[in-house]
């Protein structure tokens, strides 16, 4: 029985070894090899700094969302008084077929969730950074200051949009996640948190950074000026905006042509989201939504960088904004800088014999005051004025998706803040001076007297399609009236249906036929607050207050 012995020799030791190995608990212990743990991020200085970087990435992700043809980020522009929501997904919100009840406001969730996510992670970073041992004080305060800026900016945004918001400074944990939210946070507490956070950021951030794209003291002061305007604290708004203007670190670009040029990191930019084509960040379809389709079926015309590339004209300039921009014939902003209203023949290869390169395309049928609905519709699709702020000057003009850095805040708005604060404080001279800085660099004639209307109009010209207009109208109490009077296309105050002459329209420049102006009829005074989307209400407490009117 020699064999038997041999077999026993290898069977039994092997068995006992295996039992020992497997009963040892370390066999089941996990060690992630290609990912970091949250522990590392929140308990080391390097980790906390990486956490702050991710906050920028979260903010940028809002613009990278490709849902609804990439239009979610500009839905706020479709809801103001300056745009024609001609088609595409965005027109459902622009024409207020959506976004009027909690049930039909799914896209608003992307606003709700983006900013709450930033708030929660900022909470976690702030709490961890305040408690971490052995972190260099300078690094610690930089981390906390940036996180507090993000928190303040996000709370402020949510408050302006949704009004009834619940805010906590405690990060979400497995222990507290099942706590049910029963009520909103009082407005005073919200403003207190925003102002505290911004004050901390201002006190601890430098004016300049060698890492272009980081927020700075100037960014924080600009937002604090905005908050002060909302609180009608004119002195604070003046203080903060003038601090930015006079800091010496910023200057308006010499021409509107330069504001959105290149990397959009000029001296005018207070904060821009950063992309690097093909390497980091996704391309977006903002330009595709905003630019008309001026080369479709028009021989002699092709998509070009100069004219803003290719789009589908889903959200374009309305006649109200165009008239504001054309009020001064020298105003450069609509002359193919921010916006474009004259498209030129530019394709020698397909140019018809009777046309000349470089002259304005005037289509025989497709005209603003064309005789048929179809012909007018084609004019809106192809030849109406478009916004080219989001077209990159190194882009491929025939493509739908484009990479470009996106400015969040810029100095032109700071000047308008200062103008408003000065006006409210009775400093008309300073207000005029502030406002004229913005006008003059666009070659528009300086104004000599100023009212609130001057500021509201200048803000439309300068900042349309930058997600700023809706907030300003709401803040100044004008949102309902302006949307009712101007949303979509048509003459001011015409509430009649599309293409109808019932309201006195007669298809002339002074009395244009209404087009995509449904929002004028749909808006109600309570809609100055967005409804909290139903999906979010379902996850809040049973008596959590929806905004009034919904």
């Amino acid at each position, binding site marked *: 029985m020699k*064999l038997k012995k041999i*077999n026993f020799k290898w069977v039994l030791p092997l*068995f006992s070894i*295996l*039992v020992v*190995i*497997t009963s040892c608990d370390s*066999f*089941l212990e996990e060690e992630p090899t290609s*990912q*970091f743990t*949250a522990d590392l*991020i929140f308990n080391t200085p390097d980790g906390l700094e990486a*956490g*702050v*970087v*991710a906050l920028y*990435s*979260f903010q940028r992700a809002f613009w990278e969302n490709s849902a609804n043809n990439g239009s979610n980020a500009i839905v706020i522009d479709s809801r103001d008084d300056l745009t024609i929501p001609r*088609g595409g997904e965005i027109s459902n919100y622009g024409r*207020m*077929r959506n976004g*009027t*009840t909690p049930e039909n406001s799914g896209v608003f969730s992307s606003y*709700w969730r983006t900013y*709450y*996510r*930033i*708030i*929660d*992670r900022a909470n976690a970073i702030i709490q961890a950074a305040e408690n971490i041992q052995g972190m260099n004080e300078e690094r610690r305060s930089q981390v906390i200051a940036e996180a507090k800026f993000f928190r303040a900016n996000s709370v402020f945004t949510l408050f302006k949009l949704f009004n009834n*918001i*619940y805010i906590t400074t405690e990060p*979400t944990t497995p222990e507290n996640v099942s706590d*049910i*939210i029963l009520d909103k946070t009082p407005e005073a507490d919200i403003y207190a948190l925003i102002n505290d956070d911004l004050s901390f950021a201002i006190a601890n951030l430098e004016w300049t950074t060698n890492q*272009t*794209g980081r927020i700075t003291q100037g960014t924080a002061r600009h937002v604090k000026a905005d908050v002060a305007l909302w609180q009608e604290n004119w002195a604070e708004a003046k203080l903060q905006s003038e601090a930015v203007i006079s800091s010496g670190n910023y200057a308006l670009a010499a021409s509107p042509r330069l504001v959105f040029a290149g*990397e959009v990191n000029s001296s005018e930019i207070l904060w821009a989201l*950063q992309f*690097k084509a*093909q*390497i980091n960040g996704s391309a977006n379809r903002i330009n595709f939504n905003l630019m008309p*389709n001026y080369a*479709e079926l*028009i021989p002699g015309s092709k*998509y070009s960088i100069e004219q803003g590339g290719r789009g589908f004209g889903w959200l374009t300039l309305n006649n109200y904004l165009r008239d504001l921009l054309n009020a001064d014939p020298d105003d450069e902003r609509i002359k193919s800088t921010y916006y474009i209203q004259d498209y030129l023949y530019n394709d020698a290869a397909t140019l018809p014999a009777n046309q000349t390169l470089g002259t304005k395309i005037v289509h025989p049928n497709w005209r603003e005051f064309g005789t048929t*609905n179809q012909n007018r519709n084609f004019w809106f*699709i192809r030849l109406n004025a478009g916004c080219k702020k989001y077209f990159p000057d190194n882009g491929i003009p*025939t493509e739908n*998706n484009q990479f470009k850095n996106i400015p969040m805040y810029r100095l032109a708005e700071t000047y308008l803040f200062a103008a408003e604060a000065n006006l409210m404080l009775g400093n008309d001279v300073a207000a005029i001076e502030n406002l004229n800085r913005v006008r003059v660099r666009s070659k528009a004639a300086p104004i000599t007297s100023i009212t609130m209307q001057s500021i509201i109009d200048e803000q439309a010209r300068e900042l349309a399609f930058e997600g700023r207009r809706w907030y300003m109208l709401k803040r100044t109490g004008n949102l309902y009236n302006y949307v009712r009077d101007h949303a979509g296309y048509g003459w001011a105050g015409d509430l009649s249906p*599309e*293409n109808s002459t019932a309201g006195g329209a007669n298809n002339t420049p002074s009395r244009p036929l209404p087009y995509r102006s449904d929002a004028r*009829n*749909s808006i109600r005074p309570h809609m100055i607050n967005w409804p909290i989307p139903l999906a*979010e209400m379902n*996850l*809040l*407490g*049973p008596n959590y207050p929806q905004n009034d009117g919904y």
Partner: protein
Amino acid sequence: MDNALAIPTTNVAEMIRGQAAGVQITLGSARPGGASDILIRGRNSIRGGNAPLIVLDGFPIEDINDINPDDISSIEVLKDASSQAIYGARASNGVILVTTKKGKEGKVRVSLNSFTTVQQLTRNFELNSADEFIALRREAVRTTNPVVNGIQAYSPDEVNFNGATEFPAFLAGNFVDWEDEVLRSGLINSHTLSVSGGNENTKIFTSVNYFDQKGLIPTSGFKRGSFRVNLNQKINDRASIEANLNVSTAAQERETNNLDFITISPFTGPFDVEGNLVRDLAGANASSSSINPLWNIRESENDIKTDLYNLNLVANYKFTKSFSYKLNTLVSRKFTDEGQYISRIHSQGVTPSGRANVSNTLREEYLIENIFNYSPEINDNNKLDVLFVQSINQRNSSRTSTEATGFGNDILGYDGISSALDFITQRNEEQYRISSFLGRVQYTLMDKYLVNLTGRRDGASVFAENNKWGFFPAVAVAWQLHKETMFNNVESLNELKLRMSYGSVGNQSLDPFTTLGVVDNFPYIFGGAIVAGNLPGGVLPNPNLTWETSTTTNIALDYGLFNNRLRGTVEYYNTNTTDLLTDISLGGNSGFSSTITNGGETRNSGVELLMTGDIIRNNAFKWSLTGIFTRNRNEIVRTGIVDVDGLPNDDLGRNRFAGQPINVRRSFIFDGIFQTDEEALASPQGTLGGTVTPFQNATTLFAGAIKLKDINNDGVINDDDNVVTALDPKWFASLASNFQYKGFELLADFYIVEGAMRYNPYLADFNQGGTLTSVRNGIKRDYWTPENPSNTAPRPDFGGAPANISALGLTDASYIRLRTLSLSYNVSRPVLEKLKMNAARLYVIGSNLFTITDYKSYSPENNAGDFPDTRSLTLGLNITL
């Protein structure tokens, strides 16, 4: 499962379809080399897959399709907790045991099986013809026209058919059948050569297979070569070893993605006047982004190469006659090399200037099992069998992938990646470990009563630090009733066996590192340079997760009557899955979209019937019928979300409702078409005056718009009027008829699915022509027009999709299908002797020959835009020397 192997595919799951009660197969991908989903006794798990454990010759394998179908000798399905217990920690979704052919003592046999299959498209709907499409377009454009003096005029055709290419094609009558332009016939060739034989000490089976399939869509295909050796070597009376080796190498070619080709406007064609492919179907500067599918097919490549090595080594040793030891070891390695390239002129390749993705994935698995068995011979009336198993299992996977953009030329495709400009590389590593102990005692009394007790203790690495271990007991009893004296005189009763079992198994449907709270990468750009950013992503980590437990009660009766001419099984089961690992929606205010808890619970119960009847059974002539019926009822007991009072709540964000099945769709219900503007405006969808905001804008309420059902009859359509509809079939069944006459055998296999619902994009989505905008072609439908007051489909509108069109998408997807009709001829003995063969068989198989269903698609299990399912005809020859 004798009929199981009659289908020409590498998709082994499809071979099981309809062959076992309680096993639901759903088409996953009809692409060459594609797979189907296997679901045993319904969905227990919500977040994890519900795929069963596949055990090949006693060892787990990852993918059932890695087996060469010709090597399979039998397939068995284990469904109840007691029989699953031995396969343990990964067995809670059921076990499919696949056994390959083994060598037998005796003469060496050489066998060849070759077949050729031709595949063709099958569909049960008609697209609009040229005239119908023209009519649809005219109506759709007309809808956008103003009503003047009560008349809404048609537009001239040069307005109806716009675009640089459409109008000329319309004038010339150039109507393109996109299906013909894009698709081709599929072709499969498969050859297997096997050699087997053995003597008292050594038995061997070896086979080699070559499989080659060309898919319906150009450039799609699948090739595989596989090799298997099964060796059994006796060392002496006490010891023996077995080795199974499977080596295969496969190459799959995939077509480019997003090919919604059949609904492209038929007045645009793939070629220009010179016969060259065009890229933009609607013209170069068109706003419509219709890309020529043939263009993108030509400008892309996507190859997946897979190498698989699977080695089992088994050692058996008998200490005494009744005490034995077995060592099972498994080493398996699967290496996948994937390359994708889209050229600089592919529609998605222009911006990045060509894009390549290459990745390498290595998947490894190790298993060691120590098995001790003690089965003393007590006496004839008392039998005892005791088993102890200790095992460890480890699965690792690592993947490196690189995406590169910015190519100077397209010549080398993805192999030219080194010359690209920009690179993003990712690396992922995962590891699963399981440690298990199992004890089982089996006791048989008088060959009539059988008791089986098992207990197993499993530890899994994916669970939280202090929650890694679970204990799962099971008990089974069986009673051979026909051996009782009271049935002694019942001649017609051949078998009557009652089986009952109760027990639990664990499931660990978690990804590695989930409980640790790992963070995701969110890099960013500062000053033009990339900076690392890391934070928790959308899922809030839960550090307390542990096993989910499925507890099953199973009662079965096996019967055989009239000389076993009628035989079968009746089975009832009820499975409760508690501590269900569930991802639950979190309010946006938390900053997270979801977290995972053990808070869910599901229940599955059902009835399974199997019956085979030999209607005619004599020497020359045999006819038998087999029916298999499965009914499963699936229910979520708890979604994991609770309200303020701690009571179970629905998880609306995830479409999970307590008391409803897991697989549901929540939607409004279609209730016809409004016939007048007044009816639409006054309906519950319209304005009611006062402060109530109407469900939809007044401008979308007109004659020809979609009417929704006011479910709660409160006069208002709102969120409460949504209805939850179960999608999984209420029952499914198969019926097989087997007819044998001398050497001929005729098999017909019907598959029946009843009560299934499905969302059909061809009826509701823009890209599939479902919105009736007429921008794209679509299924022919009876749509509303002022002259045709239809009540089934809304008024076409060139300007956009009708409001609420998605309510039309949900349709019945029940069907009856003749899955297999095969005729084979076995050459008779005298002829074989002349040919010096052992056996020879010729066969013809028709697959999916016809389908009766209301679901309009390529197949009731095919999604629109998926690789289309096919009908096929196979000719094969099988000879054994």
